[in-house]
């Protein structure tokens, strides 16, 4: 078990999410920086998508009640061993100071954190309020003890992982409704953007030169995906993250390349961002 001394501002259990339920209005959820989450689990020998802690902007203090094998990946928190498994004995305190680069940090424990799954996942969906409650001060986090390492047994080797920082440039593909604007991709690529007010795991608000519609009327609700860039009436784009609404009536003009979606997890309000067209992204729909 691990006790929460300081919970930080947005600390939740996350795993591989609950994809496949969007047809019933359920967001996919899951760790925002999926590759960092997977690496943390791999380091402690978890192979089945066990739940890890997703920590936002540091500010968390945990105390081990029992001995645990842990690993921390994602945004580097000063003072915490990164990208390597380590053993923490009873009473050991771990303080996650705010990272100077990147925004989301993952703590995996051998065996995984225990929580009641909802639709097969222990991920906390911030939009729908599905899954275990966000972590609070005083919480005692249960760990599945069946997979702890025997005393003296060597933990897995560390991994060489690229340091996580906010991306400067993110690659985008055309979206299904780019024809509601004059040159949506050109506008996104040709301007600088700043991350606006925090809407957490649901999306990233972008502040910059507004996109202006060339087409009037309302768009009937249609499905949306993680990484989609939608443009509401004020012309300020929103990049959807894992807890996004499953349908919406604002035109989606572009989509972040799947290989860049994990990096979106490391953007925070005030950061600057630019886009570039993904190589291989044709212009306009392919006529089939």
């Amino acid at each position, binding site marked *: 078990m691990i006790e929460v001394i300081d919970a930080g501002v947005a600390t939740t259990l996350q795993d591989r999410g609950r*994809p*496949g*339920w*969007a*047809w*019933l*209005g*359920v967001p996919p959820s899951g760790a925002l920086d999926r590759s960092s989450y997977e690496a943390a689990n791999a380091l402690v020998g978890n192979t089945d998508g066990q739940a890890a802690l997703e920590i936002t902007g540091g500010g968390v203090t945990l105390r081990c009640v029992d001995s645990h094998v842990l690993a921390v990946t994602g945004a580097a928190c000063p003072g915490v061993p990164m990208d390597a498994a380590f053993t923490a004995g009873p009473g050991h305190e771990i303080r996650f100071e705010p990272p100077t680069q990147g925004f989301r940090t993952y703590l995996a424990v051998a065996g995984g954190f225990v929580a009641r799954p*909802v*639709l097969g996942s222990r991920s906390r969906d911030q939009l*729908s*309020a*599905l899954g275990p409650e966000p972590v609070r001060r005083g919480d005692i986090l249960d760990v599945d003890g069946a997979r702890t390492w025997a005393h003296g047994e060597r933990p897995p080797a560390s991994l060489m992982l690229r340091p996580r920082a906010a991306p400067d440039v993110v690659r985008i*593909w*055309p*979206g*299904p*409704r780019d024809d509601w604007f004059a040159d949506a991709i050109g506008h996104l690529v040709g301007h600088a953007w700043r991350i606006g007010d925090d809407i957490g795991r649901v999306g990233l608000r972008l502040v910059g030169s507004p996109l202006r519609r060339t087409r009037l009327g309302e768009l*009937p*609700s*249609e*499905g*949306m*995906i993680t*990484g*989609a860039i939608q443009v509401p009436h004020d012309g300020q784009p929103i990049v959807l993250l894992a807890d996004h*609404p*499953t*349908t*919406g009536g604002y035109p*989606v003009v572009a*989509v*972040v*390349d*799947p290989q860049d979606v994990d990096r979106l997890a490391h953007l925070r309000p005030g950061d600057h961002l630019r886009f570039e067209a*993904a190589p*291989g992204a*044709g212009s306009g*729909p*392919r*006529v*089939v």
Partner: protein
Amino acid sequence: MTVPVRPYGPRAVLVETHSPVALAPLLRLVVGVEEVVPGACTVLVLHDGRPDVDRSVADVVRMLESGDAPAAESATAPAPPPVTIDVVYDGPDLEEVARMSGLGVDEVVDLHTSALHVSAFCGFAPGFAYLEGLPAALHVPRRSTPRTRVPAGSVAIAGPYSAVYPTGSPGGWRLLGRTSAVVWDAAADDPALLAPGTSVRFRSVTRLADGEVS
């Protein structure tokens, strides 16, 4: 014949269609397709990025529209009876809806309960189904100012749709009444009562029994 299959990045396409509920289960069968999400007049198809998935999707759409599609099992089996949802029609917007439609309150209730509603798609929240079949006389716009809190079980209309709010949430739809029917239960085998394709009748009652639905 070209088919409107719009690219949605390298792992998804958006299909425009007049029959999302009929098309979605057929697209689910295409090799490489991982998930389908019906919308008002679209189906979003998430796939694994293999080449030519968009062509396979277009082929299925063409088959459906030309009448050659293999009938999905559910299409040939007898349709399940509609779900009946008991409603106490005492919602805070009922009188205003009557005024906007130029009808009496009783007529509004009669129109709502005599229609056969069908779930077209879900969105906004888990289990929130957009139900088609609302008579045209009751097509009213949303409130200009949404409520900060609509109670779970609220029965509401907006535009051409009816809905039952699965949990408390903000909402701008017009509230006609309330039900104790459970439309979302994440722990159930079928968590959504009103999954796309489900047909629904609303029944006016004077009192709600807890969790009653037939």
